[in-house]
């Protein structure tokens, strides 16, 4: 493979010994399509010519599970990757957890994917054993060919027709990493040909015979409801077939193309009434700041006695951090296709949670779940927005109401102003130091509606500080909020890692040393109960220090460290900031990731880079405010997103490991805000306590 050298904004890849460089992608020598397919199990069918179809069960949002999940199956099946074609599975009882969320696809699918491949392999081996009248244990498999001790051979293609009906074996053997031929190799994206040539793949690309495009008006502000509408002008637009009120407060225009639907939608004369609070960011800020002084009814975590430790302290550091709402802005706006067919609801589109959609649609349509089919198209980004299938519900309702095939499409304006936003949040963090040790840590969260808390209070610094307390308070709002890539940690990590950086300097310690000391403390404090692995945290921290030249940098190079565990994966990052014409510029991010076995190294690196660029862009520029319930921006001319010239150099290293794989979709995002804030402090002398950073400081991405 061509390894590019680092030239300003370039790509550097660090591979461990277990991995190899990217294959020249798409040089797959595919067999032709077979005459017949034989279903071996829900994941695998095999053609008589040995071509293998593997179904990828989970929604594909750009995290490339459509490649890596089938790779795992293919490994245990013991076929050549070149003999595999991949198809997206629909929602089906044959699969578990068909969800894209929490960076869990590989981690939770690891066992079932391997079992599916190994079980199928055993069925094929047993079939050959039966044919040859030998013991199955005497046979070996190489690349889809079963071989006997006497040198007889049968291909999977030859065996498939009989294997299809074979008994499913209970005892199967899984490979160990030393025998992996596919896992750990860089394989090209299975959809690459379609992606570079513009073939239909995404939900918004669905084109079905007789399909109508639906575009809807939605309340312009949170806190408003539909009073009445006049569709006279809208109906006059050629190509418009109907206008329907649905979902109580929405009005959809149905037309024969998207443009006409958008145009006619704009001609609807709608009267809105205020039925709830019309909320503004200024009020949110006041309410949230006040909540930072409150203790929650039940602390989320309590070790020792923080108040006593604060009373006894030599030094107390207290800081407040603030971040706004964030819209998701998947580049493909929300959309979904639905139609009624023979009494069934057939739906398909970009959805991260097809099973949940099926449940809600059953409720809305009063159809049985068995009569609702949900297909998953490829998605132009998910980021958590497509967990909430309001768009799938709307399409289903419209399809049932009208009896037509409906392709519901959100405009960018609909998408940005009718979101399920990352909630605006604030953190107050305070720590006590006595005799050179951190003796207490108190984290208070104030956020709109609530954040996904779960086990996060048990992340670092739990276990490393004897007295610790976590309180959370929420301000109820009618603005819809929800999961946004690395929920909760996408802002908390920056606050926390920025705080520890400042704390270290107050203690006159190297921030690297402070981290390592705290991790060492946690190692011997296991009974306190916490949810990260201090040993692995130490591993990524030491490696990132080495790879980034921490402590050896030139005077005009400013480094910032951040170490974070989220979604079961440990990541350490060092940001490098330099001065360009007096303005700080984020030049490079070095990232070290411990996610256990890396399934597809080149693709894994892509995820780490993506999380970093995403994290930087939103930390620097993401600003979203409300005025009287109305979103302050609704397109990219008023909402700034990171561009190519602002993306830094990124260097990624994976810790060599044979531990079971953990996820990569989210983990590299949380640490990067803190890394750049800490580096920027060293460059400017100014700490950043509010996101977006660019409101506080001029920064060059």
């Amino acid at each position: 493979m061509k390894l590019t050298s680092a030239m300003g904004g370039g790509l550097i890849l660090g591979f461990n010994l277990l991995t190899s460089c990217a294959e020249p992608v798409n040089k797959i020598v595919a067999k032709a399509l077979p005459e017949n397919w034989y279903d071996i199990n829900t994941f695998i069918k095999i053609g008589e010519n040995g071509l293998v179809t593997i179904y990828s069960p989970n929604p594909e949002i750009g995290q490339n599970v459509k490649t890596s999940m089938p790779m795992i199956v293919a490994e245990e099946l013991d076929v050549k990757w070149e003999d595999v074609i991949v198809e997206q599975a629909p929602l089906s009882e044959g699969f578990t957890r068909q969800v894209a969320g929490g960076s869990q696809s590989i981690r939770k699918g690891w066992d079932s994917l391997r079992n599916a491949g190994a079980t199928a392999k055993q069925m094929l081996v047993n079939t050959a054993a039966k044919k040859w009248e030998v013991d199955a244990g005497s046979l070996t498999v190489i690349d889809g060919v079963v071989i006997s001790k006497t040198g007889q051979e049968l291909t999977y293609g030859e065996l498939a027709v009989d294997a299809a009906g074979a008994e499913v074996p209970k005892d199967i053997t899984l490979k160990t990493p030393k025998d992996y031929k596919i896992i750990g190799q860089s394989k090209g994206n299975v959809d690459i040909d379609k992606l570079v040539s513009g073939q239909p793949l995404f939900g918004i690309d669905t084109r079905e015979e007789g399909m109508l495009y639906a575009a809807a008006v939605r309340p312009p502000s949170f806190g408003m409801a539909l009073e009445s509408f006049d569709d006279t002008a809208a109906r006059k637009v050629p190509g418009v077939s109907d206008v329907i009120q649905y979902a109580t407060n929405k009005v959809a225009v149905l037309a024969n193309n998207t443009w006409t639907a958008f145009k006619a939608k704009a001609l609807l004369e709608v009267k809105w009434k205020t039925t709830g609070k019309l909320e503004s960011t200024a009020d949110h800020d006041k309410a949230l700041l006040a909540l930072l002084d409150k203790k929650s009814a039940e602390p989320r975590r309590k070790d020792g006695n923080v108040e006593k430790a604060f009373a006894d302290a030599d030094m107390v550091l207290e800081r407040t951090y603030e971040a706004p709402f964030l819209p998701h802005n998947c580049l493909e706006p929300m959309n979904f296709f639905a139609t009624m067919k023979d009494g069934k609801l057939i739906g398909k589109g970009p959805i991260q949670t097809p099973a949940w959609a099926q449940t809600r649609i059953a409720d809305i349509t009063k159809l049985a779940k068995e009569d609702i089919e949900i297909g998953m198209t490829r998605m132009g980004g998910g980021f958590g927005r497509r967990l909430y299938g309001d768009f799938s519900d709307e399409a289903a309702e419209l399809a049932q109401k009208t009896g037509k095939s409906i392709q519901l499409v959100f405009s960018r304006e609909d998408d940005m102003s009718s979101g399920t936003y990352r909630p605006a949040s604030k953190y107050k963090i305070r720590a006590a130091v006595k005799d050179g040790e951190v003796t207490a840590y108190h984290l208070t969260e104030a956020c709109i509606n609530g954040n996904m808390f779960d086990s996060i209070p048990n992340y670092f610094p739990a276990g490393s500080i004897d007295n610790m307390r976590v309180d959370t308070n929420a301000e109820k709002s009618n603005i819809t909020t929800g999961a946004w890539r690395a929920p909760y940690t996408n802002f908390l990590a920056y606050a926390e890692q920025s705080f520890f950086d400042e704390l270290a300097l107050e203690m006159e310690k190297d921030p690297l040393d402070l981290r390592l000391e705290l991790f060492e403390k946690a190692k011997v404090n296991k009974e306190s109960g916490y949810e990260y692995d201090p040993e692995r945290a130490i591993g990524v921290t030491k490696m990132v220090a080495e790879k980034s030249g921490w402590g050896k940098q030139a005077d005009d190079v400013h480094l910032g460290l951040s170490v974070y565990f989220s979604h079961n994966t440990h990541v350490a990052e060092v940001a490098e900031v330099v001065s360009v014409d007096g303005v700080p510029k984020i030049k490079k991010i070095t990232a070290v990731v411990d996610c256990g076995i890396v399934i597809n190294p080149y693709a894994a690196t892509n995820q780490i880079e993506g999380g970093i660029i995403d994290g930087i862009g939103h930390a620097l520029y993401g600003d979203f405010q409300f005025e009287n319930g109305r979103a302050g921006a609704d397109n990219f001319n008023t909402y700034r997103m990171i561009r190519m010239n602002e993306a830094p150099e990124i260097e990624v290293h994976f810790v060599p490991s044979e531990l079971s794989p953990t996820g990569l979709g989210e983990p590299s995002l949380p640490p990067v805000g803190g890394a750049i804030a800490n580096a920027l402090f060293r460059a400017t002398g100014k700490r950043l306590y509010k996101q977006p950073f660019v409101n506080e400081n001029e920064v060059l991405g």
Partner: protein
Amino acid sequence: MPNYTLNINNTNHDVSVDQDMPLLWVLRDTLGMVGTKYGCGIAQCGACTVHLNGGAVRACSVPVSVVGDKKITTIEGLDKDHMHPLQEAWREFDVPQCGYCQAGQIMNAAALLKKKSSPSDEEIDNAMAGNLCRCGTYTRIKAAIKSVSK
């Protein structure tokens, strides 16, 4: 509705659409050529980039009535075998994550390389600044473009 004859990827297509319909929607909905994508509708994201006589334009902001007889090139027709050096580079560098922006990225880069076969880093950055990638594949896009530039 007025009729237009559009030359797309060296083939003439006759369409009967509103004069203000942007080329993007003529391509996607009237002709079913969905490679050109909708991201914002106001020429801020670049997902709809096509070529008019070899130069990059945002199809969302080009009303069909102004196209005339200019040659339109879309991602589907950039290369008849989909082996344009940039498409090959995209495969080699395994560029896409979700992939939604990539047709626009490739088309924009192709137009740049037509004008300048060896762009500097700064020229690449400037030319590609209008193409958003929400997933953050910018470093790979740049590496792919540089691998093709002479």
